[in-house]
């Protein structure tokens, strides 16, 4: 029998998982812990544990941190994160910290059993909704290559006027904005292009052909 540990502070969840596992015949619940500390102690005492269901909201520790710690003391055990939320950032972090899978708590029996089987087979399992979210996010924000800063409309206007040699004061007058606002835009642009003065900024913009 494959030994499974549940780390979750909600008593009913343990009950629900027990019900779902009842008929599988090959997985048994070896332990149920309510805190990360209890869970870590259990893993040290029972190195034969093969799979852990880890809630990422625990009363004594952040689940992401708990995952990291479990990984430190046991490299083989399979960890499936359990959460109630479907947020790409958290899922990505969890996988980075060494988890083998991720399930939403409102899963159904079929998906749950499937996840356990796959993870035991050495695969990575992500809940249906999570896959899509992570891909979207990867595409939108995390993929390298799109490194040229995008300018806002206001920034473009200000750049054009800076290019004509106008001072912040003059630009403020022309755009009906305060000098302070213009300065903030200018500082933002210096930071975006990693330059230290207006001339360098204009050069960088010209080089990148952003203003066309």
């Amino acid at each position, binding site marked *: 029998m494959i030994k499974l540990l549940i780390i979750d*502070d909600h008593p009913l969840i343990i009950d*629900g998982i027990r019900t779902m596992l009842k008929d599988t015949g090959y997985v048994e619940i070896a332990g149920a812990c309510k805190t990360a500390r209890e869970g870590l102690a259990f893993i040290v005492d029972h190195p034969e544990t093969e799979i852990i269901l880890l809630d990422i909201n625990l009363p004594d520790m952040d689940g992401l941190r708990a995952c990291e710690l479990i990984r430190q003391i046991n490299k083989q055990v399979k960890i499936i994160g359990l959460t109630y939320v479907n947020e790409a950032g958290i899922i990505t972090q969890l996988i980075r910290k060494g988890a083998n899978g991720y399930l939403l708590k409102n899963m*159904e029996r*079929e998906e749950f059993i499937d996840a356990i089987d796959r993870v035991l087979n050495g695969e990575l399992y992500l809940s249906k909704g999570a896959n899509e979210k992570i891909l*979207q996010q990867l595409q*939108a924000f995390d993929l390298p290559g799109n490194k040229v800063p995008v300018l806002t*409309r206001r920034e473009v206007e200000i750049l054009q006027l800076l290019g004509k040699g106008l001072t912040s004061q003059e630009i403020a007058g022309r755009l009906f904005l*305060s000098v302070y606002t213009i300065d903030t835009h200018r500082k933002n642009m210096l930071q975006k292009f990693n330059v230290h003065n207006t001339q360098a900024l204009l050069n960088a913009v010209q080089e990148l052909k952003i203003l066309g």
Partner: protein
Amino acid sequence: MFSRISLAAAIWLFFLPAGLQRLAAQMTRMQMDSLQLILAKAKEDTNKVKLLMTLGNNVGYSDDKKALQYGKEGYDLSRRINYPLGIGRTAYLLANTYMDLGDFALSDSFLNVAEKYYLPLPDRSYLGTVYDARGGWNFMQAKYWAAAENYTRAAEIFDQIKDTSNSITTHQNLIAVLAQTRNFEKAVTLSLKVLPVLEKRKDTLQMGYTLQGLVTDLIYLDRIKEAKEHIGTLRYIADHTPDISLAGESYSTIGTFYFHEKDFRTAVGFFKQALQKGELLGSQYQIANHNKSIGSTYLELNDLPNAEKYLRMAMDVARRYHNTRAIYNISISLSEYYAKTGDYRNAYKSLLRHLTLKDSILNVDTRNYATYLESKYDSEKKEAEILRLQKVQEQKDFDIRRRNIYIGIGAGLLVFMLLLLSLLRRNFRNRQKLASQQAALQEEKIGNMEKQQQVLSLQSMINGEETERTRLARDLHDGLGGLFSTVKMHFSSLQHEVPSLQGHELYRKTFELVDSASEELRKIAHNLMPEVLMKLGLVEALKDFCNHVNAGRLMRISLQTYGMEDRLASSTEIMLYRIIQELVNNIIKHASATEVIIQLNREGHRLSLIVEDNGRGFDVKEAEEKRHMGIETVKSRVNYLNGRLSIDSRKDIGTTVMIDLLLNEG
């Protein structure tokens, strides 16, 4: 003893409203006439309102009744053509004029109107003039601490926007209040500070007022030598100034000086000149005071018939206009008069009135002082915040109601479903009990939280709101969320055990309902406080948020962050997240934009947030006037962060919102 009191009584200080640059705006007779000609032919539009105001402001220096006429006409016209700035400005003019004429109730009403229309204006100087005028109002009603408070508010606004000339006027009014509350030393010090500034600005009018106040204070402090140094200049001002009010007050001050020097003949002469000016102006306040001064001086000269005549006139006017302070001053002189004529019964009666009024004035003063002290430190912030927070609270109440409905539906559904289950499997019965207990507990918890929320103090309200949201979200996840999950787990296991159930219509429906209830709960909890924001911080939460909006395909949001590698204080992160959420929601609701850029720049302590869309734009002024819900919420949150908000929007081009702030953390 009496002479000392009557001297004090002869001293009263002027006030002048800020915003009316009297000398600068003074026009020649000819200019006025030509304006009146234009007025006769003017069309019913904003220009006519402006014209009426110019005329009203100008005759205001010499003829209150005429000013009233122009003011009323301008006010009515502004209302007819729905011209908010015009309504505010004419209301302000009317308020000042009614104040001059002694009609304090009407003056107060118009001040309220002016304030209402000035509040949403970006140019805060208008609001400053209203507080200044209200200070004058309080001053005339002998509510000196309230006056001090209003003048301070006005001075703060003028200082903030660097409006030196109005700031000086307000400071002068503050000086007058200081004198009236017997803080003569302070008043003198402040006057001596202001005078050189005025000299530099070559502001002869304001110099006149300041000098007049200074001399009065010096006399009261018995610093006669110093007072004497200025008498010549003051005399010159009184003879030459076109400002009748200043002239009257200056003559009165000179009279007081001679009174103090026991040169009563000369004193009477100056008081009479003062009275003449007061009558010319039609100021009931001045008329009462100058008559009183003349009466008191005749008493010193033992000219009893004249003393009686002037004191009675003074009393008539003071009574007619409920000028408590004047009645108080006049009754002590009258008492002296009766004592001199041997009418001891009336002498006693007048003295009694004086003493009673003294008590009530003292009481009012003490009360005003207490309120003033109480509110001095935090009231200004509070008041502005209250308005905004009321809006926020309304939204929150609405949210809580909606949440309760969802939770109600959820809990109801739970009970219904568990009933169904108990028919199918006996051992579910125990759980049903547990579940409904939990649900009830949950509701009670939320109920308690609401109550707690209501008593949260104003200062921590926004922060408290977020703390409660976090707690509520956590409770929903851990409590109801866990319950729903378990129910689903059992449900799906049940289906596995009893395959025939799959075709059962009621079973399928119930299953679907549980599913959507659980999904709904997840969404609510997420909206309350996104887990990712707590665990991973602002940037990750924003990525998630943008992803979510982009998935809707209504518009494309891009996120750019610079220097945001370290996390910010969690309260700052939550505030910024909420601000962005609100701004983006507004864009979705109103802007019909296709592109949105969210940009965060952090360099050391400087943080700037830009949210820009390419939507249809909106009228920023109008939105502020209508206290548009979204903007109000954003404003109060930016305020919480001590940030600076600038919104600029152009029709059919888009809107750029910039928020910048200094971070406290390292």
